[in-house]
C-alpha cells in the first residue's frame, strides 16, 4: 500500500471511530460537542501508560477504561441538560480537558508529548472494523431499540419501562470509550500528540459527520464519516491532477454548499431508516418484513 493511501486510510478509520463515539449518544437524542475532550483523554492516557512501561495493547484498553470512567461521572450532570445546552456543556468539558493538559508539565504541557509504541494500519484497520461491528450489534439489540425510542419520545419510553437515564448514561459512557480509543490509536500512530490538534473544529466536524450521515441507523456515522473524509480529499486530488488550483482553493465552498443542501433535502441525515428499507440491506434495519409487506 502506498504511503499516501495508507495515510488516508488511517484518517478515515480514526474519523469512523470518533463518529461512532458521537453516534451512540446521538442515537438516543443527545448532542455531544465534546469529542475533542474524550479524544484528548484517550490519547494522553494511553501515551502516559505506555511511557510508564505498560505495553501498547494494554495501555489502549486502560486509557479507554479511564476515559469511560470520566464519561460515566460527567454523564450525570451533563445529561440533566438538553438540546443546545447539552451542546454547550459538552463543549465546555472539552475546553476544560484541553486547558488542564496544557498546564500539566508531566504530559509535556504546550510542547506536546511524544509517544513510544507505534500502531500501523494493521492495528488501526482491524480495530475500526471491530468498532463498526460492535455498534451495528449494539443498535440491533433491545438496548439499541430503547435508545432509538428515547430519541423519538422519552416520556413514552419511560411509561413502557425503559430506564431512560440508564440507557442515556450507557450510551454516553460507551461513546466516551470509543472516542478515547480513537484518540489512543491517533497517539500511537503519529507518535506525537499536542492538545491543539484536538480543537473545537474536530468536535464540530465529528458531530457533523454523524448528524449529516444520519442518527437513525448504524450506517449513518459510517457513511457520514467516509463521505466527509473522502470528498474533500478527492476534490484536492482532482485539483492537483487537473492543474486547476481554484478547485482546491474553493473546495470548502463546495463542502459548505453540500452541507446546506443536505440540511434542506435530507434533514434527518443521508442514511435514514426508510432509505435502508428501500435498498433492503441484509442487516442494520429489520428489512425482511418490509420486503414481505411490499410483496403483499
Amino acid at each position, binding site marked *: 500500500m502506498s504511503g499516501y493511501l495508507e495515510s488516508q486510510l488511517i484518517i478515515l478509520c480514526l474519523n469512523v471511530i470518533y463518529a461512532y463515539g458521537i453516534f451512540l449518544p446521538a442515537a438516543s437524542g443527545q448532542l455531544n460537542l465534546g469529542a475533542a475532550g474524550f479524544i484528548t483523554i484517550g490519547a494522553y492516557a494511553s501515551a502516559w501508560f505506555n511511557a510508564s512501561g505498560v505495553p501498547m495493547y494494554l495501555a489502549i484498553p486502560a486509557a479507554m477504561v479511564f476515559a469511560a470512567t470520566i464519561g460515566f461521572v460527567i454523564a450525570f450532570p451533563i445529561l440533566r441538560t438538553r438540546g443546545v445546552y447539552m451542546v454547550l456543556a459538552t463543549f465546555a468539558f472539552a475546553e476544560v480537558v484541553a486547558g488542564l493538559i496544557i498546564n500539566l508539565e508531566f504530559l509535556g504541557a504546550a510542547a506536546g508529548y511524544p509517544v513510544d509504541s507505534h500502531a500501523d494500519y494493521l492495528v488501526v484497520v482491524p480495530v475500526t472494523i471491530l468498532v463498526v461491528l460492535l455498534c451495528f*450489534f449494539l*443498535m*440491533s*439489540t*433491545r*438496548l*439499541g*431499540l*430503547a435508545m*432509538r*425510542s428515547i*430519541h*423519538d*419520545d422519552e*416520556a*413514552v*419510553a*419511560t*411509561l*413502557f*419501562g*425503559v*430506564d*431512560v437515564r440508564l440507557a442515556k448514561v450507557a450510551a454516553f459512557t460507551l461513546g466516551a470509550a470509543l472516542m478515547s480509543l480513537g484518540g489512543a490509536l491517533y497517539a500511537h500512530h503519529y507518535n506525537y500528540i499536542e492538545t491543539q490538534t484536538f480543537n473545537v473544529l474536530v468536535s464540530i466536524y465529528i458531530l457533523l459527520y454523524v448528524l449529516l450521515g444520519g442518527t*437513525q441507523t448504524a450506517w449513518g456515522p459510517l457513511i457520514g464519516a467516509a463521505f466527509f473524509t473522502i470528498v474533500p480529499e478527492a476534490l484536492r486530488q482532482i485539483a492537483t491532477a487537473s492543474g486547476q488550483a481554484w478547485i482546491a482553493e474553493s473546495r470548502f465552498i463546495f463542502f459548505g454548499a453540500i452541507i446546506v443542501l443536505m440540511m434542506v433535502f435530507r434533514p434527518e441525515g443521508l442514511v435514514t*431508516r*426508510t432509505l435502508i*428499507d428501500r435498498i433492503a440491506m441484509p*442487516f*442494520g*434495519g*429489520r*428489512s*425482511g*418484513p*418490509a*420486503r*414481505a*409487506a411490499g410483496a*403483499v
Partner: protein
Amino acid sequence: MADDVLSIEGLHKSFGGLKVIDDVGFAVKRGSRTALIGPNGAGKTTIFNLLTGVYPVDGGTMVLDGRDITHVPAKDRVIFGMSRSFQNIRLMPHLSTVENVMLGQHARARRLGDLLYPLGFRPRNRWATAAKEALEEAGLETYPGQVVANLPYGVQKRIEVVRAMVSQPRLLLLDEPAAGLNQVEAQQLLALLEKVSESGVTLLVVEHDMHFVHNLCDHVAVLNFGKKIFEGTPAEVNDDPLVREAYLGSDTSMAGRGAAEGAADAS
C-alpha cells in the same frame, strides 16, 4: 377489595393555584369496562397521567391490584400490570410497526441478557415473533416492517393498543381511543377492545363519543372540574340531572355523537 383491580382514594393534584383533581376516588372492578367521562378540562387525562406516574400526586393513594403504586417510579409501574394508549398518537415515528410493539415488551425484558439480545440480527427471534403474532391477532399483519409515521390514522390507533397489550397488563388505560376515527375504524377498534376485554384485561376508557361508551362500557364515572359527580351504569348516566347539566346536555335522546357539542353548550 380483592375484586377491584384499581382503587383510587382522595386523589389531589394542583397546577399552581388550579385544582385539577380535587378529592377524586373511584374503584375499577376486575374484568370491567369502565368509562371515565366529562367535559374538556375535567381532569380525565390528568388522572391517567397520575396513574402512570407522568406527574407526582399532591395527595391520595392509588392501589393497583392490591399494591400501592402512589410513589412507584413511572418506569416501574408498567411492571405492576398497567399500560396505556395516548390521546394524541404517540408511537415512535422512526420505528417500524414491529419495533413499536417490541417496545411494549420492554417491561418483561429488562435483564442484561435481554437488553443485549440482537433482535435485529435474528428476524425470527421469539420477541419479534410474539410481536408479529400480536399484530396478526389485531388484524394488522400487513404492516410489520413499515415505519409507522406513514400508516393510516386508524391503523396507528390500533397499533397503540397492541403495543400496550404486549406488556401483558391487567389494567389497560385508553385515552380517547375513538377520537378522530371514522365509523369503520371505530368499529374495528371496538371489536379489538372487546377481544382484549374478553381475554380478562380490565379497561379504563376516557372517551367523548357516548355512542362508543354505550357500546363498550359497563360502568361509568363522570368528572367535572376535577371532582367526581357521578358513578354508575351507562343507562343511569343519561338520567342523572347533574351529568346532563355538566356534560351530556338536556336532550338525552341525543346521547350519541351530539354529546360533546351538547357539553359545550351546557358549559
